[in-house]
């Protein structure tokens, strides 16, 4: 995985936050729209009631007055004032506690001081009067609490309105009640007041709480599922990576086993041939009756020498293959000489001159066998390079020294430089320039060296390559 799991999850959380915000905003917007529609509906109802009072109720009362069924100077706002009636209807509703909004009528110079608007409301009313808009809806702040405010203009829709709202024509009982009647000074159809609807935003939102909760929950669940999904992918990737590493390890182990077996066979070939030659020699002498006792003893001794050499060789390899269970202290000299000994047959066969220079025999804690494996690997690569580049004077120089107090082992060869274009890549897994190579040798070497708390570097010299192990 190219990006770390954490970054992806963080991105997802951010995305989730943004989407949630957008979602809630969208829902809020929707709720406001609903609220506005409801408010206008309510205000329209109020206006309709007002119209009913003007067009139905008042003429009826006039009619009753004419028929003398009512006193000619009869006046009662409970029957005649549309503002009064609508306010009372609102009060009844509020008393039943099934509403959560404020209803108010605002007028300039109202008869009823309750109808006096505040600065903000008067501003809106003026705008209505000037005909700037037909309705007004906005979220406003009052005492630091957000409210949704909707206003609708009231038109002076009927002549009967003017009758009462003009000093000259107002009924006597009305003047007695209110003492002064402010003059409307307007014609039928003019805006004289407005009715407003105000509801706390909070209660709009509470009303929609279920939708919010359900929506939020669904989004959260989807989000969690996504995260789980990503986690699952991440785990799989992780497991695959582990598996690949394991596979590489075992491939490399097999390859180095194969190489080691090659080395053992090199080491053994000579003594085997010698023992074979000795046996044939003995047999031929015996056939010809020329086998003396001295000769037999001497030949047996020779053969035994070869056998003990073979035995010690196999011990070296056995030690090398023994898995080390714990880190032990080892010295630079020890690992270098062990690597050289294990490879001695093939170094001799290919006439490679190995020079070892222990300037400082430092000791380190770690897995000696693993370091030996890396040294062998690098020397083997050099051997292959010698053969590939057909170099006659083959030299490998191994040095152990302290570089400003830092223990270092360098392996330098004269097997030709590595192309600058690929030198960066030689530690990559599966990178190889050879036909029959897994491309894991140097990759694993680097891994092993790093596992042992050191670093492995490579650079070109004049006529070859220098590998440096920095402990």
């Amino acid at each position, binding site marked *: 995985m190219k990006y770390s799991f954490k970054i992806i999850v963080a991105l997802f959380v951010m995305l989730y936050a943004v989407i949630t915000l957008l979602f809630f905003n969208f829902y809020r917007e929707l709720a406001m729209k609903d609220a506005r529609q409801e408010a206008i509906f309510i205000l329209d109802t109020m206006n309709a009631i007002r119209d009913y009072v003007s067009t139905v109720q008042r003429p009826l009362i006039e009619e009753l007055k004419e028929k003398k069924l009512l006193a000619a100077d009869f006046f009662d706002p409970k029957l005649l004032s549309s503002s009064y009636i609508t306010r009372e209807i609102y009060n009844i509703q509020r008393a039943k506690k099934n509403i959560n909004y404020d209803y108010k009528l605002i007028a300039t110079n109202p008869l009823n001081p309750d109808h006096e608007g505040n600065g903000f409301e008067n501003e809106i009313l003026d705008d209505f009067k000037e005909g700037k808009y037909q309705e007004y809806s906005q979220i406003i702040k009052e005492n630091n609490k957000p409210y949704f405010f909707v206003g609708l203009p009231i038109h002076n829709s009927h002549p009967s309105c003017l009758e009462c709202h003009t000093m000259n024509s107002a009924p006597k009982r009305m003047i007695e009640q209110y003492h002064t009647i402010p003059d409307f000074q307007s014609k039928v159809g003019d805006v004289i007041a407005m009715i407003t609807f105000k509801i706390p935003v909070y209660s709009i939102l509470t009303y929609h709480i279920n939708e919010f909760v359900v929506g939020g929950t669904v989004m959260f669940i989807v989000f969690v599922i996504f995260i789980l999904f990503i986690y699952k992918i991440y785990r799989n990737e992780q497991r695959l990576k582990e598996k690949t590493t394991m596979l590489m390890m075992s491939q490399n182990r097999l390859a180095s086993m194969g190489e080691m077996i090659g080395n053992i066979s090199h080491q053994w*070939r*000579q003594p*085997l*041939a*010698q*023992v*074979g*030659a*000795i*046996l*044939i*020699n003995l*047999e*031929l*002498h015996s*056939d*010809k009756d*020329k086998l003396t006792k001295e000769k037999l003893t001497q*030949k047996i001794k*020779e053969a035994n020498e*070869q056998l003990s050499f073979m035995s010690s060789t196999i011990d070296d390899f056995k030690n090398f293959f023994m898995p080390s269970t714990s880190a032990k202290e080892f010295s630079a000299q020890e690992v270098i000489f062990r690597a050289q000994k294990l490879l001695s047959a093939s170094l001799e*066969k290919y*006439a490679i001159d190995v020079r070892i220079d222990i300037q400082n025999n430092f000791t380190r804690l770690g897995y000696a066998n693993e370091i030996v494996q890396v040294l062998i690997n690098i020397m083997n690569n050099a051997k292959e390079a010698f053969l590939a580049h057909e170099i006659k004077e083959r030299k490998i120089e191994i040095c152990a020294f302290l570089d400003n107090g830092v223990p270092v082992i360098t392996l330098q060869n004269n097997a030709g430089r590595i192309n600058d274009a690929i030198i960066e890549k030689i530690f990559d897994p599966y990178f190889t320039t050879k036909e029959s190579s897994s491309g894991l040798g140097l990759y694993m070497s680097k891994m092993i060296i790093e596992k042992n708390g050191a670093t492995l570097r490579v650079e070109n010299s004049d006529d070859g390559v220098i590998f440096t192990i920095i402990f």
Partner: protein
Amino acid sequence: MSECNLLDVLSNKKVLCVEDEACILNNIMESLELFFGKVVGVKDGIEALDEAKSNLYDVLMLDISIPHMDGLEVVKKIREFDKKIPIIILSAHTEQEYLWRAVELKITRYLVKPYDKNTLIKALEDVAMELIGHMPMFQVTPVCKYDFCKKTICHQEGELVHLSKSESRLLEYFLKRPNQTVTYEQLFDYMWEFEQPSKEALKSIVKELRKKIDNNFIKNLYGVGYVCEI
């Protein structure tokens, strides 16, 4: 012909053995000494080529992995001037590459190490057969034959005459080069190598051969050497 003694053909022959490992060389030489008149061992390719160029050897036995020049390379160089000399290759390699190279060099045997006694004997018998041109009895003159194994001259009348080691060695040298001029120098080198040779000694061996076989089959070339007419 007696099965026994094909290998006796080798008893007056000289073999060069090339092997870089001292102990193996030593053992092979000891073994070969049981069959050959003389065994010389060297350890590397260049030395081997120098030795072979001296032209004194009847048989070569080479290991492939030897320092400086590999065994097959040495053989290739030798084949440039000597197409006939029987060669046995010893090697631990069985890779095709080596075998192909070996086939082209017309070697007698390719022995894979470790080999056993019988393989070695068989190889030596092949070499012996090759040395005598696959004819154990050689018709030297119309009336007498030479038996390579027993080193005897067999006359028509049934008379058997034994040849000494130097006589048989010289005779076989002539028989290999019928109707060719053989110089004194060649013969000195072949017969005596580093010891001080003398014309008299050579003449006396030739004289013996003429006596035992036929007066005329070895002709003198005055001041040069001999030619064997068959």
